[in-house]
Each structure stands twice: as C-alpha cells, then as structure tokens.
C-alpha cells in the first residue's frame, strides 16, 4: 500500500509514466500486429466459419470495457476512503476509453450476431447489461462535466463509479443466470481450441497495453491541465 501511495504522487507518476510509456506503446503495436497476423491465419471454425475472426476484436473490446470499469471502481474507492486527488484523475481518465471499448464491443458483437444468430440485437441479459454499461459510462462522464466544483464532482462521480460496479458481475454471470443467445464463458473453462485461443490472448494483451498507454497519457494530460489552472489562479 505504501508503494502505491508513493507512485500515486503526481510528480512520481509523471516520472514513472514517462519512463514506462515507450515500452507500453511498443508492446501495444507489437502485440496487435502479431495478434492480427495470427487472427487472420486461423482456419474457419466448423460451426461459425470465418466469422470466428470477429472474436479477435469483439472479445478484447468487451473485456477491456469491463476492466476499465474495474479501474474506475477501484480508483473511486481510493478516492472516497483516502481522498487521494490522483485517484479522481485516474478514474476520470479511464472513462472515455471504457465507453469506447463498450461501444466497440456492442457494434462488433452486433456484426457477429447477425450472421450467427440471425439478428443484430436481442434484449437478453448479456446484451442488455452490456448496453447498460455504456449508459453508466456516459452518465459518469456527464456527472464529472455537470458539477463545476472539482471536489464535489469527484465525490459524486466516485459514488456513481462504485454503484455502477454492481453491473460488472451481472454482465459476467448473465450468461449463466438467464437464457441468452450469447455463448457462455469459454476461455477460462478451456472450451476454446488453442488455434483460436492464442490469437485471442495476444489481441487481449494488445488491447490491454493500448488502454494502459492511453490511460497514462490521459492522466498526464489532466495533471498538466490542473497545474496550468493553478498557475492561472496565481498559485506556485
């Protein structure tokens, strides 16, 4: 915990992220390039044909949508308990990327669903709870922008950030709890054939590094902007 607080200092974060960014950016490019190559060279699935290649953009986007919300929930918890200003910055910075990944998950899922299920959309547990995640993201971002006082905005957003986290296990277990067109979990259970699993894992790692890279840059942007606002107000 002490280590976490040491690097949660804005100056320490700027130094650490400055050193890490070239590596996370390089890892993003490398992993996505390898993932695309592996993904486009898989054989057709015996049931889904070549639509299976959509898995390599749909699943990473959907996974990152949930992980980004996890980041917001954890940072919100830190913000409410320890009132650490960098927690607010970290939570706020993750939201637009989480919303983007959610939108991409919905669009690519719909494009995959049409040829496989015969429909673009179904109001079932998984799809509806995932759509709700997009609305939670949009509401979270709107709340930050709606309250002028930054401290009050951070407090309100942190509460929403924590409350909205209830939706994450609902998304995860929706395929077990309710009847759905969406397939069940197949990565951890080992149901996915290795020929599809490896490209998927590489793409997921690539998306994760992309999120970390963009998130760190967004946090740096917010730290610089706050410094500029302090200067404008005549601060040190």
């Amino acid at each position, binding site marked *: 915990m002490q280590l976490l607080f040491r690097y949660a200092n804005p100056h320490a974060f700027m130094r650490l992220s400055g050193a890490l960014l070239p590596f996370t950016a390089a890892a993003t490019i490398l992993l996505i390039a390898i993932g695309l190559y592996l993904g486009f060279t898989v054989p057709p699935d015996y049931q889904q044909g*070549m*639509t299976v*290649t959509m898995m390599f953009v749909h699943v990473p986007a959907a996974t990152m949508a949930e992980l980004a919300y996890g980041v917001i929930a954890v940072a919100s918890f830190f913000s409410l308990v320890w009132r650490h200003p960098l927690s607010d910055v970290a939570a706020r910075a993750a939201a637009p990327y989480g919303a983007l990944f959610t939108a*991409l998950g919905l669009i690519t899922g719909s*494009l995959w669903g049409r040829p496989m299920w015969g429909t673009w959309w179904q109001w079932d547990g998984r799809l509806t709870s995932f759509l709700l995640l997009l609305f939670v993201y949009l509401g979270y971002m709107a709340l930050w922008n709606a309250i002028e006082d930054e401290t009050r905005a951070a407090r309100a957003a942190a509460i929403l950030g924590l409350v909205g986290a209830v939706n994450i296990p609902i998304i995860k277990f929706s395929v077990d709890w309710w009847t759905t067109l969406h397939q069940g979990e197949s990565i951890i259970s080992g149901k996915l054939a290795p020929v599809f699993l490896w490209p998927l894992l590489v793409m997921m790692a690539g998306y994760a590094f992309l999120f970390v890279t963009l998130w760190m*840059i*967004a946090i740096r*942007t917010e730290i610089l*902007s706050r410094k500029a606002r302090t200067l404008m107000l005549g601060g040190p």
Partner: protein
Amino acid sequence: MNFWDMGGYAAYVWPAYGVSALGLGLAVLWTLKAYGAAKARLKALEERKT
C-alpha cells in the same frame, strides 16, 4: 478460399475490423492532441510567469 471474401462473411468481418480500427485510431489521435495542447498551454503560462 479468398482471404478478402472471409468465407462469404466479408460484409460482417471487415466492418467489425474497420470500426475497431477507426475507433481506436481516433482515440489515439484525440489523446495525443489533448496531451500536446495541455503541454503547450502549461509551457505558455510558465513562460508568461517568468
């Protein structure tokens, strides 16, 4: 099998990849643009102050 045909599913596969590339590409551009603008603004303020 023709690669671009994607086994007859090209109309679904390529838009999925296209929208992903577009979305993520725009996110990268937007993030870098915002970072550059924040850096330039802070630099201008610091120069004005000194």
